């Protein structure tokens, strides 16, 4: 194992701000894009099936 403690892992040899600043924003963007896409798909699917039912009636 490379790190002897959690604190050492978080400190990243003094570069913690830079390493975690880079990784946190990347993770945030990927999570936000995924959530936005799931929500958009859900809304569009609901609208489509509603209009399909309306057309069938």
């Amino acid at each position: 194992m490379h790190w002897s403690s959690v604190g050492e892992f978080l400190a990243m040899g003094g570069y913690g701000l830079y390493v975690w600043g880079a990784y946190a924003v990347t993770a945030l963007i990927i999570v936000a894009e995924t959530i936005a896409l799931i929500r958009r798909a859900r809304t569009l699917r609901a609208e489509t099936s509603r209009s399909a039912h309306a057309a069938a009636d």
Partner: protein
Amino acid sequence: MSWFKYSSPQTFYPLAGKMLPWFAALAALLGLVGLYIAFFLAPTDFQQGEAYRIIFIHVPAAWMSMFIYAVMAFWAGIGLVFNTRLSSMMAHALAPTGALMTFIALWTGSFWGRPTWGAWWVWDARLTSELILLFLYLGYLALVAAIDDPRRGDKASAVLALVGAINVPIIYFSVQWWNTLHQGSSISMTRAPSMASIMLIGMLVMVFAFWAYSIAAALMRVRCEILSRERHSAWLRTLEDI
């Protein structure tokens, strides 16, 4: 089986839905393996200390930013020449993910540049051409959004995507053509990679993770595009599983 079978939104919509979970799962799995290598197996760099660990997201994002642009320009061009609406939708679906990858590349690069170069930003050829790539993506998205008629929007944005494609080789070769602060490529076709093999493996795993993620995001978005553009089509009403 004919490949053209899947060139219509009607047949591609369910196919994209079937492929989506596989690419999403692949992205998650490769991402976890890649991060484990990045933080627990890869050794400390003898010059840059732990700061170099940004490479595991910086390089994949930068590669994907260029690759997605090339694929987007390809589909936009196909849509322009053959007038196939699915191709144009594919190009639109790739653009936001490409823009985000470009932003990630610039952001992580900035957080890497500060400790190693002493500056968050420099007007270096590599950095400047990557920033131009971000503006190309944003311009493309703005143009698509600004034109009400989707078919006209497809054509106008395709021209922009194709003209902008000239920037991709400029980014790639910028470190050779100009004397830049940005380091040259760590991986080349003609010589051995200039990094430790476990670092290289970790980086390549992350490249495939970003690639699988980009495909999953694009497939999801192209399904949304199809639903919103074809909402009045008869085929959507006959679809059993929307």
